[in-house]
């Protein structure tokens, strides 16, 4: 016992000095796979080597919901991680929790290099709250071989709902043994389709000029989307696994050539290209088809951003921001994009990729890029902000599924609006 005490007494000052000299920056993220988690670890190692005073420690903390609850509960115990990756649907919750500080308040950062629609999502009340990191939007995936088989021109994928329905008719007539169209039922797509039509998903400018108190599920834009699925289902042009939010299952149906057209996130370009190669068909990527008779307003940039904790020493906050900026610098965002298919969130990264000739090497990515850069900044494309985000999404998905099971569009939307508005009211009651 005495020996241990002695040892501790000797080691104590040394350990203390080391701790003094080094600021530890914890970084919690949601990438448990070696590909993306490994990329983050590599960036941290580089940064730590170049900045001996700071030690960034990245850690995988489970899915979006696990991470936001873990972060906030540890902040309440006074142990917040310096950097947390929060999904876009959790932005309002993160803001309302009061445990984070706006990154624009830590030190002067030049945000002009960030792509406008992306930085718009995370700018709330004139303040940039968090740094954009992984960003994506929905696009059309199509099987070129099956299109040819059905007598369609693979160079001309459908860009509108009616265009898709017309192709479906031809595919059915050609009897190629595959359904026309399949995608997962996810509220995120509905939010994007509403943005494309210039319609905010929530009132009060998508919850940006004041707390959202009602959804716009009774709008014409929402009816356009649901009617499209009603028509698809009535004609048996559509298939999915039957489970809501089943991204993986829908991808599997597409890569097993059971459907010709598929819609999912640009971040799946890598996985679906691999799947197409394995199955032996040529994959195409096109813009997100939208309702007819509307101008293309653009998409909402989904994904996640990096939030910095409030109750930490200034040196630590600055170290955290330095690392976040390093990880999302021009070169790193370009390499992140190549690895994952997520958008590089900086204009300069796009310029770099263009200079390298990346888009001739990877033409599939170009469509996604144009869709993002052509987005018209507006409250609709800035994206919905509400603390009841996950719940309203699920309500929309259940209404969508009801339409697929035969309920009328008006009845399903009316019920969904009542339920979603009640969820918003319940959340807002926390602030009375």
């Amino acid at each position: 016992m005495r020996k241990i005490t002695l040892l501790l007494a000797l080691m104590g000052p040394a350990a203390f000095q080391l701790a003094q000299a080094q600021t530890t920056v914890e970084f919690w993220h949601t990438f448990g796979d070696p590909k993306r988690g490994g990329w983050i670890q590599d960036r941290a190692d580089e940064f730590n080597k170049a900045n001996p005073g700071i030690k960034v420690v990245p850690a995988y903390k489970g899915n979006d919901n696990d991470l936001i609850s873990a972060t906030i509960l540890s902040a309440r115990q006074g142990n917040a991680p310096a950097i947390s990756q929060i999904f876009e649907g959790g932005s309002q919750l993160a803001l309302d929790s009061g445990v984070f500080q706006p990154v624009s308040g830590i030190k002067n950062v030049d945000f002009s290099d960030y792509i406008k629609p992306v930085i718009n999502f995370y700018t709330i009340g004139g303040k940039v709250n968090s740094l954009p990191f992984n960003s994506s939007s929905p696009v059309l995936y199509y099987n070129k071989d099956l299109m040819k088989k059905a007598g369609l021109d693979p160079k001309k994928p459908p860009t509108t709902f009616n265009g898709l329905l017309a192709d479906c008719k031809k595919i059915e007539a050609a009897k190629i043994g595959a359904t026309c169209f399949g995608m997962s039922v996810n509220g995120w797509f509905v939010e994007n389709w509403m943005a494309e039509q210039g319609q905010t998903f929530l009132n009060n400018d998508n919850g940006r000029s004041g707390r959202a108190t009602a959804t716009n599920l009774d709008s014409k834009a929402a009816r356009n989307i649901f009617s499209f699925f009603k028509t698809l289902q009535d004609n048996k042009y559509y298939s999915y696994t039957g489970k809501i939010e089943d991204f993986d299952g829908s991808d599997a149906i597409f890569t097993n050539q059971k459907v010709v057209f598929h819609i999912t996130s640009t971040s799946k370009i890598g996985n679906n290209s691999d799947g197409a190669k394995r199955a032996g068909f040529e994959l195409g990527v096109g813009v997100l088809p939208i309702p007819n008779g509307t101008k293309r307003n653009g998409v909402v940039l989904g994904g996640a951003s990096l939030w910095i904790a409030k109750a930490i020493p200034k040196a630590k906050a600055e170290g955290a921001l330095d690392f976040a900026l390093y990880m999302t610098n021009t070169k790193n965002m370009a390499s992140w994009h190549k690895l994952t298919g997520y958008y590089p969130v900086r204009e300069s990264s796009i310029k770099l990729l263009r200079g390298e000739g990346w888009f001739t090497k990877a033409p599939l990515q170009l469509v996604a890029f144009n869709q993002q850069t052509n987005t018209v900044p507006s409250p609709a494309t800035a994206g919905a902000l509400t603390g009841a985000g996950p719940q309203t999404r699920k309500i929309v998905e259940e209404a969508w599924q009801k339409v697929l099971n035969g309920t009328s569009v008006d009845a399903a939307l009316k019920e969904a609006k009542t339920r979603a508005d009640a969820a918003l009211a319940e959340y807002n009651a926390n602030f009375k």
Partner: protein
Amino acid sequence: MLKPASPPANTEANAVFKGTAMPWLFLLPSLLILAVFIYLPALQTLRLAAYKANLILGTERFVGLQNVTELLLSPAYRQVALQTLIFMVLTVSLGLLFSLGLAWLASRPVRGSKYYRLLLIYPYALSPAIAGTLWLFMFNPEIGVVNQLLGSLFNVKPRWLDDPILAFSLVVVAAIWKGLAYNIVFYLASIQNLPGDVMQAAEIDGATPAQVFWRVAFPLLTPITFFLVFTNIISALFDSFALTDILTRGGPYFHNAGITTFLVYQLYQDGFVNFKSGVAAAQAALMLVLVAFITFMQFKVGEKRVHYGG
């Protein structure tokens, strides 16, 4: 029969603690662990049930019994409770019937019975999450093995996961399959311990195999059946979570709620997806009442109905 001579009343057998301090001291470690991990959280939950609270915001507003009354009046919650009840009755009754039948067959003296037993028991080693994923792959309507078979044989492709009746039945069957192994282990052990002389006597008296089973073996198996009924009820209430989360996400939506959303999944959704801690705590309190009632019934029925052999 040779009876062991009763041991002399020695001091060891009759040892009694002199004071009251000693036994409490020995109980202390267990009590401490129970207090920290069970009793305190349970009390916290009961307190939280009286508040409108949000986990993320850290807000708390006292509302008394409002959470509980709202739940009891909510058509969605009532439907979830009813679905849970139907799910529980179906999985427990059909599950036990199947396991007893299979255990009875596997305990017959046939060649290779050891291997049958092994194969019957192995699904117990799968975690519910893996079982859910397996079923999800098998019942994918487009590329799952089940629909490929049905498609080529009968030209039908049932919508397993979005047709309310099919989805509910699928979850019931998956839960029964998952619980089968556990029940079979207990039944096999009990069947092997049945008194052979009683069964032989019945056979000599001219009882048919069916009569031997229902009139002699089954009553002798009531203690284990009784035990299994209650463990299965508890597992239907609580362990259904991983299976439904992975297989159906509680859907498809039917009437007022997802048809495979059961009490514990609803609690998870409200507490950890929608972060409504107060409402979730109220649901936990209601489930506590339910479990207390089941435990009470267990003792009550146990005293009257169960035939402990001998």
